[in-house]
C-alpha cells in the first residue's frame, strides 16, 4: 500500500469509512469521468460488504457524490441525494453477487451506455476492474486512456505512435480481449495530461471503435 506521509496522515475525507465512503466516492468519480460528465440516470449494484453495510456507511451517498463530481472531502457528500435530485440525476440501487473472487467492497455501475465494475480496496483507494466487457486495472493515479479496438496486428503501434507524436509519455499499457481478432480493450496510463485533441486523433485510426479519457483523481 502507498506509504507516503500523506497516505498515512490522510486521506482528508468525509467519514465514516475509508473503504465504504472515501473509496466509494472515488469510484463514482472514476465512472463520471468515463461518462464524460454527470449522466441522466445511473444504477448502482452493490456486492458483498458494500451491499451489507448499506446506507450506514454512507456508501450510497458517497457513490452519488462521486458521480456528481464531488471530491471525497467535500462536506456536500452528506447531501448527495438532494443534490442529485436538484441536478436531475436519477439514481437506482440494487444488490448483485459478483462471485467469490470479487473484492468484498465492489459495485457495478451502469448507465444506458456505460458499465463499470470497481472496488474500494482500502485506505480510500478505488480501482476499476471492468469497463463494459473488458478487464482493466484503473486506479485514477494517472490520466488514463481507455480504448476499444478491432484486434489486429499493428493497432497498438498506431495508437502508441499517435500518443508519441503528440508528446505524451506512456506509463503503463494493459490489453484485454474476448477472443483473437475480435475486439480488444486497452488501458493506457499517461505520465501527464492527455494532449488536446488526442481523442479525435485516436478515433481517426480505422480499427479504433471507442476512446475515453479517465482523468486522474488527484491534482
Amino acid at each position, binding site marked *: 500500500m502507498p506509504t507516503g506521509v*500523506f497516505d498515512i496522515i490522510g486521506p*482528508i475525507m468525509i467519514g465514516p469509512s475509508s473503504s465504504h465512503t472515501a473509496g466509494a466516492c472515488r469510484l463514482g468519480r472514476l465512472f463520471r469521468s468515463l461518462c464524460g460528465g454527470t449522466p441522466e440516470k445511473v444504477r448502482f449494484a452493490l456486492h458483498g460488504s458494500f451491499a451489507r453495510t448499506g446506507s450506514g456507511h454512507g456508501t450510497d451517498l458517497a457513490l452519488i457524490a462521486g458521480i456528481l463530481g464531488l471530491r471525497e472531502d467535500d462536506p456536500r457528500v452528506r447531501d448527495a441525494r438532494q443534490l442529485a435530485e436538484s441536478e436531475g440525476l436519477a439514481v437506482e440501487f440494487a444488490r448483485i453477487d459478483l462471485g467469490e473472487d470479487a473484492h468484498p467492497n465492489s459495485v457495478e455501475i451502469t448507465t444506458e451506455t456505460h458499465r463499470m465494475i470497481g472496488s474500494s480496496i*482500502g485506505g480510500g483507494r478505488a480501482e476499476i476492474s471492468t469497463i463494459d466487457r473488458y478487464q482493466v486495472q484503473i486506479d485514477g493515479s494517472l490520466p488514463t486512456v481507455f480504448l476499444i479496438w478491432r484486434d489486429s496486428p499493428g493497432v497498438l503501434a498506431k495508437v502508441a505512435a499517435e500518443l508519441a507524436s503528440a508528446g505524451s509519455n506512456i506509463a503503463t499499457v494493459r490489453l484485454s480481449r474476448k477472443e483473437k481478432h475480435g475486439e480488444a480493450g486497452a488501458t493506457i496510463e499517461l505520465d501527464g495530461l492527455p494532449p488536446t485533441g488526442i481523442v479525435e486523433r485516436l478515433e481517426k485510426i480505422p480499427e479504433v471503435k471507442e476512446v475515453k479519457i479517465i482523468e486522474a483523481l488527484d491534482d
Partner: protein
Amino acid sequence: MAEYGYNNANELLDIAAKHDISLSRAVLLYESETSGRSSELLETEMKRRLAIMRHAVDEGRRTQEKSKSGLTGGDAHRLANAVEDRSLPLQYDFARIIEYALAASETNALLGRIVAAPTAGSCGILPAVLLAESERLKLSPERQIEALFVAAGIGRVIALGATLAGAEGGCAAECGAASAMAAAALASLYGLDNRAQVDAAALALKNSLGLVCDPVGGYVEVPCIKRNAIFAAVALSATTMSAAGVVSVIPFDEVVIALRQVGRAIIPALKEQSEGGLATTETACRLCPNR
C-alpha cells in the same frame, strides 16, 4: 536506495543518527526525496491537515447530534461539559484528551470531514493526543507539524512490516497503529530523543496485539468511537513511561512482525465482518436487527 530511505524503525533511527537529525526531519527529507516536493511545501500541506484535525475536534465537541444509526453521538459534548464543570474529581488534562478523541471520532460517524490517521476508524487518536497536549504545554504549530511527521514515519513502518487495515490485521492495525503513531508524536512534542520516540511507539503497539475488529452493525461507531478515547490513553501511558526512561523490552520492529503474525491468526469473522464478538451480542443484535 534514496539517501534517507528507511523500511523499518531501525533503519529510520540509523538514518537520523547518521545525519544527526531528528526522526521528524528524516521522515520529512525522505518524503521530499521521493515526492520531489520541497520541505516547505510538505510542511504547508501537513499544516493544512493539522487544521482539519483541529476542525474535526471542534465540530465534535459542540454537537449533540446522533449518528444515522442512532447508536452514538453527543459523548464528546458530555466530556466537554464535565471538563468545563469541574465538579467531578477528574484529572482534567487527561479528560481533555478523552474529549478530543471522542470528538474527532464522532465527527467521522456524522459524515463530517476528518483526516484518516491512519484510518477513518482511528481518526480520533492522534489528533486528541497532539492537540490536547500542545494546548496544555502551549506548543507552536511548528512543533505539532514536526510531531506529525514522526507519526507518519511510524505509520509507514507499520504499513510496510504488517498492515494498516483492520480487515487484515484486526484493530491493532488501526487503533493500535494510531496509538503508536500518537505515542511517538507525543514523545517528539515532549522533546524526547529519537530512541525514546520509537520506544513509546513500541509500548503502545504491543498493547493492542490481538485486538479484534467487531463493529456493532458494521458501523464505525461501537466500540470504535470510545475505543479511540481508550487508545489515546494508551499512547499517553506509553509516552509517559518512555519519558521516564522506560524501554520497550521487545523492539518496535519486532512488535510490528508480531502484529503481522497475530493479525493473520485472527479469524476473519473477527476482522471487520461484524460476525463475532461485540457485533453478535444480544444487545447488538437487538439494536441492529438487519445485520
